[in-house]
């Protein structure tokens, strides 16, 4: 402690910038090497999106895709999250392949997600470097139990997948720069607020460990994700360039008759057993409640709620609260009915369907009124 104090005094008297911070006799070398360090890393600039979303809103594969799209334009992250919410709640798009929906969204912002098959793991690092050199962020969809920094590492019971952005590499040292969207404890995410897209670097070997362990699982599962790495690249000019165009597109394409929530209610009595598991209800809550938070937040941003009259601000906020409250209640009711082994009677079912339809129509009416 005494030694540190002496150094501080010396620094203050010295009045030289180079000693200001950190107060260390190694500061000279640190400064000398700082420039070299920057050159040593090829890293794509992606915001941390501290004001972004977590796994209670959008799943841990689509948040990284949104983040990677943000490399091309900061707002892409929000456009992607908005469309993800919209398309998972109301859509006719056939979800025959998991990439279909994602690429429909990315198409709106002039991007696409490309599949790279890497059958020889010794090619993984060179493939990553080649994409980064071409300024294309990558997405690796790993198994939780292959992530050494996850609580599920080597836990064979955890078969979930998790997306990671790969955004850079070190030219001198065997290091890969990754971005983590959320951390990674399913039991915690709903109670712990975590930062989005935290940046850190791991060695090539650790990345290969993730890759190899992940692909052992995917091979066993005969998964489409086996030996696959995705890159996000530009295909042309974005169709959506600002929030005005985003809302226009929403108003033109929103169809309350395509409600996925209504589909859930309609098929509830045939799927009661499926609705009992934690995983299923967590998924439904995320899609039909969590992502609605995203939708309202971005709509609010687009229509500039704060610029509306006080009366209209209140109307927007009250409607938002009622809309979310209804969905929260409906999902709780469905979950409780499933655990009680009680099907919905016809009156309950029709009541819920009508309420869903009414609320969706009110949503579109309100946005039209405030926006047009």
């Amino acid at each position, binding site marked *: 402690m005494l030694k540190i104090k002496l150094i501080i005094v010396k620094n203050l008297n010295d009045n030289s910038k180079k000693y200001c911070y950190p107060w260390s006799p190694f500061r000279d070398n640190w400064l000398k090497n700082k420039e070299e360090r920057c050159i040593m890393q090829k890293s794509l600039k992606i915001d941390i999106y501290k004001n972004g979303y977590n796994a209670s809103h959008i799943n841990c594969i689509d948040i990284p895709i949104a983040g990677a799209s943000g490399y091309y334009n900061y707002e892409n992250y929000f456009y992607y999250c908005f469309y993800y919410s919209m398309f998972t709640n109301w859509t006719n798009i056939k979800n025959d392949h998991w990439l279909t929906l994602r690429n429909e969204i990315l198409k709106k912002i002039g991007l696409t997600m490309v599949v790279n098959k890497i059958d020889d793991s010794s090619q993984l690092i060179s493939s990553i470097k080649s994409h980064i050199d071409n300024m294309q962020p990558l997405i690796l969809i790993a198994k939780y139990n292959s992530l050494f920094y996850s609580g599920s590492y080597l836990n064979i019971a955890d078969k979930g997948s998790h997306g990671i952005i790969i955004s850079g590499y070190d030219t001198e040292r065997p290091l890969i720069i990754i971005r983590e969207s959320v951390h990674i404890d399913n*039991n915690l995410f709903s109670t712990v607020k975590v930062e989005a897209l935290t940046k850190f670097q791991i060695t090539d070997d650790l990345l290969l460990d993730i890759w190899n362990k992940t692909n052992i699982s995917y091979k066993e599962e005969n998964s489409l994700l086996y030996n696959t790495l995705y890159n996000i690249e530009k295909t042309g000019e974005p169709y959506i360039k600002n929030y005005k165009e985003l809302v226009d597109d929403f108003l033109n394409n929103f169809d309350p008759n395509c409600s996925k929530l209504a589909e859930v209610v309609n098929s509830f009595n045939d799927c009661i057993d499926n609705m009992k598991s934690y995983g299923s*209800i*967590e998924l439904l809550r995320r899609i039909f409640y969590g992502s609605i938070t995203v939708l309202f937040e971005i709509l609010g941003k687009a229509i500039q709620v704060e610029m509306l009259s006080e009366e209209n601000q209140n109307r927007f906020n009250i409607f938002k609260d009622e809309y979310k409250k209804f969905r929260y209640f409906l999902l709780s*009711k469905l*979950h*409780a009915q499933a*655990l009680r082994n009680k099907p919905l009677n016809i009156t309950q079912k029709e009541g819920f369907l009508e309420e869903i339809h009414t609320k969706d129509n009110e949503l579109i009416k309100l946005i039209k009124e405030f926006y047009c």
Partner: protein
Amino acid sequence: MNMNNIETKIRAIIEENAEMQKDFSHITSDIDLKNIGINSITFIKIVVSIETEFGIEFEDEDLDYNKFPNIKSLVNYVEDKTHNSKESK
């Protein structure tokens, strides 16, 4: 059934569902359920287990964990429900 018995049973149900908190010996009845790892999903599981245990059913509008911040509020609710159902018999 007295309040102590109700509380003991509800504690056992919560303990079974609380994934973050394993040792319940020092948990007071007014601790925030969110702080012991109860979320909106585990809350519904707890509700249905309570229903089965006490032969009651929560009203639709009460399927909301914001209305039940702690063990005490659940105990009071069950006490009211079981008391009312006895009176109506």
